[in-house]
């Protein structure tokens, strides 16, 4: 078990970690996340004493790490960094056995361990052990980086944005591999990232930090459902389910491209336009582009006279909503009245867009399934 007890770290006047208390269970996959400068990396590096802390205590299994020789301490904690940091002057085998050799394992034991680890990672010993780091791809190198960290069997592994420099596909693969690996090994892993998707995917528990403090520590599920702070919601972005609820406004769900016609336009012209676009109504605006109402093709066909301005056909009471109206209200309105669309107006009454049932559904879908496509067509 790892316990941070009222830990504070300052650089000059700036407090980067502020009276932090945190308990990490054995075998837990803990992800530290937050905006840059929030203290997540500092929190991580204090644990293997790469960074000294000013106040408080950190315990690993009841021993205060201040009382452990830092070199000894680090040999018992795995460490993986974003820059990978494989030693270019050493072969893959030598890199993996860095810590075992520091711990003075016998040559045979080291060799056996390297074979075993490469096997776990599905890498052939013959093909890889005698290569040098630069002969491997970035993804391969970081696989070795992870193996090096766990080579001597440390119970705790620290990972500082380990996959941050990899391309998205490789990152995804390595995330899966790490998850699978830890199912077998049950290490306590403390993992720093700024990618909420990665955090949700990997973590047993996410600790969200800002300005050196913990804003929320919760399971991914819990954090997605009940983000404790607007900043966390923002970090969640499209991952968050919360925006499917009450946060959405009309601007989020409307279609942007709309056909508007000036009120002076003649009826026949309008019919022609509607036929071309295969639509059955137009939005009518005055000379200042302010919303007047809408005209249906049926009404025009039935009551309209050729050469009359379209304004005569406009139903002035046609419903409209404002851009900042809650999307749910618009949705209710759309369902209740059974009209095919709602005009969305800016504050100055100009037309911002329309909400159709389709645009609403697509927006909701993108929120629910986290799809980044922009459906505003």
């Amino acid at each position: 078990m790892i316990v941070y007890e009222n830990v504070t770290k300052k650089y000059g006047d700036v407090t980067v970690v502020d009276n932090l208390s945190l308990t990490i269970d054995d075998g837990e996959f803990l992800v530290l996340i937050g905006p840059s400068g929030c203290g997540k990396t500092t929190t991580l590096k204090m644990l293997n004493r790469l960074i000294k802390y000013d106040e408080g205590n950190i315990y690993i299994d009841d021993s205060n790490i201040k009382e452990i020789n830092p070199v000894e301490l680090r040999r018992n904690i795995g460490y993986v960094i974003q820059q990978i940091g494989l030693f270019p002057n050493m072969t893959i085998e030598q890199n993996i056995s860095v810590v075992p050799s520091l711990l003075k394992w016998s040559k045979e034991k080291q060799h056996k361990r390297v074979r075993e680890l490469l096997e776990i990672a599905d890498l052939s010993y013959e093909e890889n052990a005698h290569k040098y780091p630069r002969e491997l791809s970035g993804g391969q190198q970081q696989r070795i980086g992870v193996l090096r960290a766990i080579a001597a069997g440390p119970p705790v592994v620290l990972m500082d944005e380990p996959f941050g420099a990899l391309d998205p596909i490789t990152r995804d693969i390595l995330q899966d591999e790490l998850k699978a690996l830890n199912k077998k090994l049950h290490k306590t892993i403390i993992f720093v990232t700024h990618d909420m998707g990665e955090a949700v995917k990997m973590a047993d528990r996410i600790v969200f930090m800002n300005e050196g403090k913990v804003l929320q520590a919760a399971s991914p599920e819990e954090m997605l459902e009940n983000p404790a702070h607007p900043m966390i919601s923002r970090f969640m972005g499209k991952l968050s389910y919360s925006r499917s609820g009450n946060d959405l406004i009309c601007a989020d769900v409307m279609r942007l491209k709309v056909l508007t016609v000036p009120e002076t336009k003649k009826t026949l012209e309008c019919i022609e336009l509607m036929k071309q676009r295969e639509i059955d109504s137009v939005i009518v605006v005055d000379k200042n582009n302010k919303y007047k109402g809408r005209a249906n093709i049926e009404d025009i066909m039935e009551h309209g006279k050729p050469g009359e301005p379209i304004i005569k056909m406009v139903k002035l009471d046609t419903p409209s909503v404002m851009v900042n109206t809650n999307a749910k209200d618009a949705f209710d309105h759309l369902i209740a009245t059974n009209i095919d669309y709602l005009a969305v107006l800016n504050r100055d009454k100009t037309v911002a867009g329309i909400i159709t049932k389709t645009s609403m559904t697509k927006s909701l879908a993108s929120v629910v399934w986290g799809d980044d496509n922009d459906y505003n067509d």
Partner: protein
Amino acid sequence: MTSFLDKYGDMLLKASLVHLQYVLTSVGIAFVIALIVGILLSRAPNISRAVIPLLGIFQTIPGLIFIGVLFIYLGIKPITVLVALTIYAIFPILKNTYTGIIGVDPSLKEAAKGCGMSDMQILFKVELPMAMNPIISGLRMATIYTVSWAVLAAMIGLGGLGEFVYRGIETNNQVLIIGGAIPSAIIALGLGYLIDYVHKKITPRGLQGGA
């Protein structure tokens, strides 16, 4: 040619050995001193910021001056030449050792620290191997310059191949000039190649080519 060798062969061999001795001794001592001081400087960035530019300036002082100054203080003794050449040879090695170590990617040092290496282990397992290229090129530069300046040992009458060149120039004797110039050129080229060869041998494949 044969008559030249008959006449000067023994002398030439002896002079070459003296020359080689001057070079190897001074460069050897300089290498050890420069390496240690370079490592220490890399640990004291504040001092180094002031010291390193000064080293660059001292490096521009011709070796002749070191020989001259020490000659005035120490007189005509082999130690004069040795000390002068040693001081001269320290600069390029020291400067390259320092810049080499400072230039090691900080993430490698952090990884090494994170693996639980002690400062000494980081130095010997990571920093020095990574700084090998500049250190060895500094050594090569120092060696070649030292062969060149050692020719001047003759100026204060302390032998070496310079004696041939020097006397040849003084007396306008072409045979003597060539007799001294060619072996000294061979020594310089030979040592240069030897260093290149050893360098290549001891550089792991992972650091060859670029890096």
